[in-house]
Each structure stands twice: as C-alpha cells, then as structure tokens.
C-alpha cells in the first residue's frame, strides 16, 4: 500500500489487525513522506529513522504475538519539550541544544509501553513561548497550507507534521493555546485536556499552573484513542488528578440531539474577520441540524484574560527558568568571572529574545512593590474568569467559539510586535486560565483556501462531551478531509 502515511491511526489499526500491513511498512511510508516534504515544512528538530524502524520491528512482533495494545505500531511525533530518554530534547532553545534527558516523561513512557513508533521531536517556539513557532532556535516551521505562513504555535511542528502527513498523530503542549491555535492554522484536530488530566512529569516547565499536554490528529477518532492512552493519574506529578477517565472512544458516533451549546456574547463581539464569522455561523447551523440547542451566554471577565495571562505566565516562567544556570545541564558561557557572571552570560547567550522578554516581564511583575498590582491582581481576576465559566456550564454542555481571530499569518508579520502576537490567543487563553478542556477542529476554509478552526470548551474533566460534539460535527460536515497544498500561498 502506497498511501499508508496519509491514513488515520484507527484505519491503520484495523489494517494491522487484519494482517494487511505491518508497522515497518507504515513507518517506512511515513519516513519516505518525511524525506519528500520535510525540506519545505521543517516540522522536526530531531529525527531518528533507524530507531523508529527498530520500534516498528518490535511493534510487529508484539502484534504477531497477540500482546499488542490498541495503538501498537502507529507512528507519532512528540513536541521537543517532552523528555525522551537519551535523545536530544531541546525545547527549541540553544540553552538545551545538547540536552539528553536521563529519564522519560510519563507520556513518552506511555507511548513506548503501548508500542507506538516515536519518530522524533517536533519543532516549537522556544520554551513554548510564542504563537508562530518562529522563536525556535532551529528556525521557523512552515505551514503546509502555504509555506510562507506560520503554522501557529507554540506546538507548530506537532501540528504541521500531522497536516503534512509526516506522522499519523502527535503530542503537543498548551499553556495559552499552543495546541489549539496551530491545530486551527494547520487544519487538524487538537485538544488541550483539563489541567491535571495528563501527567506533566518530564514536560519542560513553562507556566506550571497552565501547561497541559494533549494530542493532535487528522480526525477526532484518533484524538479519542490518544486521550485513552495519555490521560490518567501519575504519582510523579502532584497536580495530576486522581480521577477515573472514561473510554473516550465510546463517545464517538453518538447522538448529540438535546445537547446545549453556549455562545458567549463577549467572544462573538470580538470576531472581526468575515471568514471566521462565516465558518462559525456555518458550524452553528450544522449543530442545530444535529438537534443541538443554542443559548446566549455572558462571560463578563473574558476581556481581561490576555492581560491577566501575560502577568501570570511570565511570572511562573521567570521562576521556572531560574533553573537554567549553566551548572547541572544546559549551555554554559565560556570566559566568565565568578558564579554570578557565569549565570548572567550563560542565560544571555542561551535564551532567545522572546524568552528573555518574558523573564524580564515576570521578574518585574514579581519584584518588590509590584507584586500586588500585577501578580496578585491577575490571580484574583483568574478566579473571576473561572467563576464565569462555572456559571456558564450550569446551563450548557459546551461553549462554541472561534479558535483564532483569523487564519494563519505570514512568517515575519508579527515577530517584532509582541503585543500583536499575544492578541492571537484571545479565544484560547481563558480556557487555560480556568483549567478547562478545549478542542479545535477544522471548521472550514477561508476565501483564500486557508483552514479555520472552531473551538469547543467544556467543564472540568468533560473531555467526553468535546469528543461527542466534535465527532458528530466531523461526521456531518466532513471539513477535516481537506488537505493542504504544500505550496507557497
């Protein structure tokens, strides 16, 4: 079979079990595809073909022995901020350019135990700080829908690799929209689970109260399969939630008649782009045809989400990134005079512009005399945003809104204007602030043929409702079947 690289995980799973293909054949097909398109897309930081084929051979023997798990033998890419034992894990940064973790992140351990084939690490904004994958030390990833466009960020490599069929599925992480935004820009599905659903052990920390790992795929069925694998309590992460997650695949292809979706006026008022407005109106019609009831909602504190986020996230980052001191791991500057000089010069040369900007911002906001006005104030507004959502979910099953204000922007367009870059996350950030699950699925194309995602948000630990609604939408509207051109737009 020549088109194995373009198939979804659930299709490949059934081909494997019918003995119609092997993991080695699938992996080889994906590796050939990578050779063909990676010079244009540049989605990967590290790739190890031989290791991938070795994993595939192991998967094939598991499948032959009958000891396989559902996703055994399926190729996957991981974001470059997930510790991969003995393999380069750089977080898109010069400061970690030679870092080889001595242990696996819990999610990586789970992929390996499942017998999945980890192809390599996908490109990302440095330390996940960015909305375009342009701040990576390794250079930007390009959007398969237009090679002069950004794939969004920060998990741009994870999204672009799935969109370009360079992998079957991938994992990313989402602190303020870093899974959902690139999913929207690249025309794939991506979910940020509830804070605490997926272990963060071994995920390089950016803003610990906001970070969450989640899956990318070309359809919602694969998202459900990956959630089944990665969700669950982990004693190694003290914020990991001890809850029992359901079998998410049970919510695929089920009726959504009688469910209620909320449309918050504060989100709708913000839509300025005509294509985004049309895609959202179209999605509403699809859901209504499926028997979903729509209600109007108000989330009064939503407007303060970005301001509060860009206080809280940099504050947590400035604290988390204090560990990069050139002592235990990471880059150390040569020619230094004493310890303090070593810290200052190593960090100055090891971190890129956006990371330094956020460390400066966070350090300022936490410094004596400013803590009350910034961090404490933002933490209180976070409470208000969360209460708004809790109240909203008393009257609806999910909230529908755009994922991003517009389709993908050009590489270079916003890189020198941090405030404009930050505003890209206006629809995604409130979800992280409240720790809610959110999914972006393909909603349709713009007049220029670029993908536009729609976002569904549910209450804590109700990922199942997102799967149920997304699956129904996907089955009916089939917007997820559009594929990118891999050309300059």
């Amino acid at each position: 079979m020549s088109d194995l690289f373009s198939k979804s995980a659930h299709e490949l799973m059934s081909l494997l079990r019918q003995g119609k293909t092997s993991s080695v054949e699938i992996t080889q097909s994906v590796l050939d595809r990578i050779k063909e398109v990676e010079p244009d897309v540049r989605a990967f930081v590290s790739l190890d073909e031989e290791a991938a084929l070795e994993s595939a051979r192991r998967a094939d023997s598991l499948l032959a022995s009958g000891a396989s798990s559902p996703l055994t033998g399926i190729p996957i890419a991981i974001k470059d901020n997930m510790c991969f034992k003995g393999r380069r894990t750089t977080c898109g940064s010069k400061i970690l350019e030679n870092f080889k973790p001595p242990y696996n992140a819990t999610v990586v351990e789970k992929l390996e135990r499942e017998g999945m084939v980890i192809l390599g690490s996908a490109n990302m904004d440095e330390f996940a700080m960015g909305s375009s994958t342009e701040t990576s030390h390794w250079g930007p990833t390009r959007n398969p829908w237009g090679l002069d466009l950004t794939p969004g960020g920060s998990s741009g490599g994870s999204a672009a690799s799935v969109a370009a069929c360079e992998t079957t599925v991938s994992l990313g992480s989402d602190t303020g929209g870093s899974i959902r935004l690139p999913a929207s820009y690249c025309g794939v599905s991506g979910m940020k689970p509830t804070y605490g659903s997926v272990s963060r052990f071994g995920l390089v920390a950016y803003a610990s109260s906001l970070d969450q790992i989640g899956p990318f795929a070309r359809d919602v069925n694969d998202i459900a399969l990956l959630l089944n694998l990665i969700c669950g309590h982990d004693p190694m992460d003290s914020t990991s939630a001890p809850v029992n997650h359901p079998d998410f695949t049970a919510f695929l292809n089920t009726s959504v008649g009688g469910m209620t979706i909320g449309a918050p006026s504060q989100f709708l008022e913000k839509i300025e782009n005509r294509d985004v407005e049309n895609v959202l109106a179209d999605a509403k019609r699809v859901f209504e045809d499926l028997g979903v009831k729509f209600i109007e909602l108000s989330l009064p504190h939503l407007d303060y989400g970005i301001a509060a986020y860009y206080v809280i996230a940099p504050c947590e980052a400035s604290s988390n990134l204090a560990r990069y001191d050139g002592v235990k791991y990471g880059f150390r500057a040569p020619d230094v005079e004493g310890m303090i000089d070593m810290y200052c010069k190593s960090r100055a040369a090891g971190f890129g512009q956006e990371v330094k900007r956020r460390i400066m911002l966070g350090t300022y906001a936490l410094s004596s005399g400013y803590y009350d006005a910034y961090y404490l104030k933002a933490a209180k507004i976070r409470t208000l945003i969360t209460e708004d959502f809790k109240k909203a979910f008393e009257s609806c099953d999910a909230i529908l809104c755009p994922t991003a204000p517009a389709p993908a922007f050009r590489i270079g367009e916003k890189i020198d204007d941090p405030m404009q870059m930050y505003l890209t996350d206006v629809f995604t950030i409130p979800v992280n602030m409240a720790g809610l699950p959110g999914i972006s699925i393909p909603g349709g194309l713009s007049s220029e043929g670029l993908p536009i995602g729609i976002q569904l948000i549910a209450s804590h630990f109700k990922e199942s409702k997102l799967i149920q609604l997304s699956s129904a939408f996907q089955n009916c509207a089939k917007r997820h079947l559009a594929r990118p051109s891999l050309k300059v737009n």
Partner: protein
Amino acid sequence: MKITPEQVDYVAVLGRLHLTQEEKAKYLSQLDDILKYMDTLAEVDTENVPPMASPVELFNPLRDDVVKPSLPIEAALSNAPSIEGTSFKVPKIID
C-alpha cells in the same frame, strides 16, 4: 505603570540576564507597551475576591514511605557542562 531604564537594569540583575544596550532599549519600549495593556487589570473590582494559584483543587498527595531507586550519579551528571569526580564543577564562589 511606566517602566524606567533604571528598572530595566535592576530587573535584568534580578533575572540574571546580561543584556546588551540594544536589548535594554528594545525591552524598555516593548515592556512599556505590554505594561500599558496590563493596566486594564486595574479596572476590575477584585475586593473580597480570593487569588487563584491553580485551576484544580490542590491537596497533599501522600505516598508510602518506601525507598525507590533514584537516578544513578553518572546519569545525573551526564548533561553537566563541567564535573569533577561525582560533583558539578563551578567557578570559585568564595575568595
């Protein structure tokens, strides 16, 4: 709030970042823009609102006091820029 060049210098010291003059000038104007946007937070009445540190209810996750294998010393040192024996090696701290 307006940020001054002296504050940029001070924050760079706190953040242990050696910044060039160009970087300082750039961050001064960019941080000023960003902080101006942050000032909208002052509009919100947060009287009697508790601050939120985490989106989930935090509790003390206790575990049995059982010794488990830890990272071998060689593995823990394997990424260090400089080591001596079983220690991390750093420039002299005390004269």
